[in-house]
């Protein structure tokens, strides 16, 4: 990777926080706030794309260190930012989701400055997690992302927003506490001299973590991170949180924040504790598969449109978790691909449900939406939802298919019974998506409820741009997954994962 690419990537975190500071501190009209916000998001996206292009030129499973300086010398903690193919995939996802989120929040008019300041504080934290190579730094950014989430939901949310925000914060903190405890244990067990993940992996390979230590440290850290990834039965914050959050925050929550958990689980628990994974893989896979089927089943009976999508996220994240414990190349790369894919598709679905439909119909009840004749009133929203729905149910040609089939193949390789059960989840996925699609967009309007009288505001340009951008992403990856797989697959063999391949998966 050349200096230019490294510079681009190392600028992403500071630029995003700077954007948050400017928006929060400088008085300006709302219109300008939105422009600055869009600018900040776009700069993050473009820097990520430039960095990725430059990264793609290096050969082999490299890790590119962007920035390294001692932070807490006595503890061996560094401010260490670095990327590999997996981080870059997540950075790109964050860039797309953040940009789309701004575009879908163009109509926010309550305390606009605070909204976008918190929004970018969250995104800065997310970028930080995806790029830190130091475990302590990773945790700091991870915590940093929780606080803005709480306020975004509690202030700008809808429905039972305070309850949802509190639930989300509590679940997050419990998870964090588990991760923190695990982190300290790892630090001590590895000789209390470094938090660098590569060095920890080296020690793990050398046998620094005994089997009995891994037997409890693995579940502690995996479940700690897993809570944020929607691991059943700790998933209940997700549907309530997603539904109460304002659209942009739902997009980020489902699209990116859940990936923080999965990313942490992969980077720390799976990478450092091969023996722990071997011991717990069956149990975790079982939870993942229950999540897939249960999430889909619950989505099938929801009456609230946003809850359908909320539970679908739990179901789709189950595939990520299942992929993580397969411990084979196909399954793991499928899991990472699914993180990206679900991030994009969930963003799209929440964009339609929360912004395009809810802001015009002012209800999320399927039974009410049914009577409104939305196919006539909002044809663009219908088209977007149809595409996003097919992408979500795993139609070939969209990113979800490639990702889920990889996870399924990986799982089948390890243990066919889990793959078969996950297949049942896909069937239910088709059913709940079709049900929502039919009810909301394809049922007959009752004249007295029809949304055409008075006519609903047409879909605005920012919404269209945001939707088209995300559709292009999911189609592009679906048709040519190599764009990402060429980044992800080599990364699975870099120094961070040197200990992992020694263990056993499912």
């Amino acid at each position: 990777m050349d200096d230019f690419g490294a510079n681009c990537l190392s600028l992403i975190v500071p630029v995003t926080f700077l954007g948050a500071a400017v928006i929060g501190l400088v008085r300006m009209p709302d219109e300008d706030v939105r422009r600055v916000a869009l600018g900040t998001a776009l700069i993050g996206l473009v820097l990520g794309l430039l960095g990725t292009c430059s990264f793609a030129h290096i050969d082999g499973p490299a890790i590119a260190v962007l920035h390294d300086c001692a932070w807490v010398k006595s503890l061996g903690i560094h401010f260490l930012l670095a990327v590999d193919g997996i981080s870059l995939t997540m950075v790109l996802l964050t860039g797309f989701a953040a940009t789309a989120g701004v575009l879908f929040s163009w109509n926010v008019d309550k305390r606009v400055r605070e909204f976008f300041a918190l929004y970018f504080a969250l995104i800065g934290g997310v970028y930080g997690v995806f790029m830190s190579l130091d475990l302590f730094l990773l945790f700091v950014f991870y915590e940093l992302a929780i606080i803005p989430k709480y306020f975004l939901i509690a202030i700008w949310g809808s429905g039972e927003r305070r309850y949802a925000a509190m639930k989300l914060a509590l679940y997050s903190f419990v998870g964090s506490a588990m991760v923190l405890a695990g982190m300290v244990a790892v630090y001590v067990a590895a000789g209390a001299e470094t938090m660098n993940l590569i060095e920890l992996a080296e020690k793990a390979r050398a046998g620094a973590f005994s089997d009995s230590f891994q037997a409890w440290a693995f579940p502690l850290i995996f479940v700690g991170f897993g809570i944020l990834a929607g691991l059943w039965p700790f998933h209940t914050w997700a549907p309530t949180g997603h539904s109460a959050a304002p659209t942009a925050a739902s997009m980020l929550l489902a699209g990116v924040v859940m990936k923080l958990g999965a990313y942490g689980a992969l980077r720390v628990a799976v990478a450092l504790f091969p023996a722990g994974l071997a011991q717990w893989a069956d149990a975790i896979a079982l939870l993942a598969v229950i999540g897939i089927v249960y999430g889909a089943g619950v989505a099938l009976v929801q009456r609230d449109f946003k809850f359908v999508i909320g539970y679908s996220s739990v179901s789709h994240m189950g595939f990520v978790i299942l992929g993580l414990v397969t411990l084979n190349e196909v399954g793991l790369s499928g899991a990472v691909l699914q993180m990206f894919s679900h991030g994009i598709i969930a963003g799209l679905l929440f964009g339609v449900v929360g912004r395009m439909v809810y802001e015009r119909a002012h209800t999320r009840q399927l039974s009410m939406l049914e009577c409104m004749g939305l196919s006539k009133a909002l044809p663009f929203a219908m088209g977007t939802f149809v595409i996003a729905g097919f992408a979500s149910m795993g139609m070939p040609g969209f990113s979800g298919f490639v990702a889920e089939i990889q996870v399924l193949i990986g799982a089948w390789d390890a243990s066919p019974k889990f793959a078969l059960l996950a297949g049942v989840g896909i069937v239910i996925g088709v059913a709940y998506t079709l049900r929502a699609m039919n009810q909301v967009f394809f049922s007959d309007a009752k004249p007295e409820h029809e949304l055409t009288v008075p006519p609903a505001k047409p879909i605005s340009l920012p919404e269209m741009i945001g939707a088209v951008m995300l559709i292009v992403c999911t189609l592009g990856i679906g048709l040519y997954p190599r764009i990402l797989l060429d980044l992800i697959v080599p990364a699975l063999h870099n120094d961070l994962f040197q200990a992992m391949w020694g263990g056993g998966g499912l």
Partner: protein
Amino acid sequence: MGVFGLMNDAPLISILTFFPLVGALIVGLLRSQDAARVRAMAFAVSLVTLFPIAFIWLNFEAHSAGDSLQFVERHDWIPSLGVEYFVGVDGLGLLMILLTGIVVPMAIQASAGVKRNPQLYFALILFLQAGLYGAFTALNFFHWFLFWELVLIPSYFLIRNWGGPKCRAAALQFFIFTMVGSIAMLVGFMALYQNAGSFDFMELAEGARNNGAATMAIFVCVLLGFAVKVPLIPFHSWLPATYSEAPTPVTMLLTGVMSKMGVYGFVRILLPIFPAQIEAAMGTLQTLAVLTIVLSAFAALAQTDLKRMLAYSSVNHLGYCMLAVFAAAQYTSVDPQWAAEKSAALSGAIIQMFNHGVTAAAIFCFIGFLEQRSGGLRGIDDFGGLRKAAPILCGLMGISLFASLGLPGLNGFVGEFLIFKGVFALSPWAAALATPGLLVTAVFLLKILQRVFSGPLNDKWKGFPELTTREQMLVAPAVALMFVLGVHPQLFLNLTNSTVVRIVNQLAN
């Protein structure tokens, strides 16, 4: 030379597949309020695809000694899964894309009655055409499955939004049946991939009998996907409602080409990849095929709605193909003397696919004409004596019905004759039990002729309009094909010969 030289090197099959997709986008974005203009545009797009097909046909080396696959394109796609973009045609693929190229423009022209949202309607049909071309030329499971599903989505919306009074329930039933079949198939292929390490149809077929990659469980999963699509009894229950509720042009597509995707799957995928499993389950499979043939014939006899009647007739006709495919998997051990019988059965099955596609599409097209003229009536007893009022319509439709019942000299005879020639030698009992199907088919098709065309002319239909010139032009190519193929079947049998020989050889290994 210039232009043709260029065409020889061009990725013709990709162009063929993606051209209708581009056309669908253009048609979908047309601003015109005039349905006829949108239809003309869509017709032009779908008709243009016949040029690359004609070129492929003219340059197809029917007697090529080597690999029977031609116009192959092969590119790396997803290396981590070993997936390639791999397309090409052999005789079977060529006949199927030709059939698609003929039936889709017919269906578009037959859609004169569509007035509501014509842009979307015709865009969906072109979308479907692209999916069909893709599915008939793909040789790697991965993108074959993409196109297989791509066909499902537009047909779901076409049935749902432009169909008859109960179309929504029918569309949903159709979607769910097909989707469950597809997912079973997907699971099956994943398991197969685990065992064989490939998604490539040709590789999977090589030595399928010896390498032990395929198991009975995998076979059942994959079979389910195709059995729903064709359909094979007892997986047929979606079909009568779907065929009768779909708008008639879409029924033409459903029976004319989409059901062929299922049969194509049997010939291209099931038979070469799972010969041992078919042989092991021979008794059950042949029973199902015979039941399909016989029961659907009797079911057709019991119907009063013409569309439902012909729907069951389709099931019946494709049942013969199933019978041939299953029979061909027998006696694989050593005996080379069965090769001729197997070739006959398979050639018959392939030719029957094409013939049934053309004939059934034409018959449904005629039913559409009857519906338009009668204001939606299509019961067998709603008409009577029409041949006096509309002799040309009745004459041409009569020819199609006779082609369908297998009158020698028309196309239907050739396929069924070859199938029975092969199957009687390979499994005489199954063939004997299937013959009542032939008889009953003749009975109900003659019943249509008698009730609709003959007898006293109902007063209501005194002024029953004759076929217009446009409508005559529309069905003329199909009727002409019935004669041409009836008299000169070698035209297509030559094309499929090398494919059949390849499959039979693979079976013997």
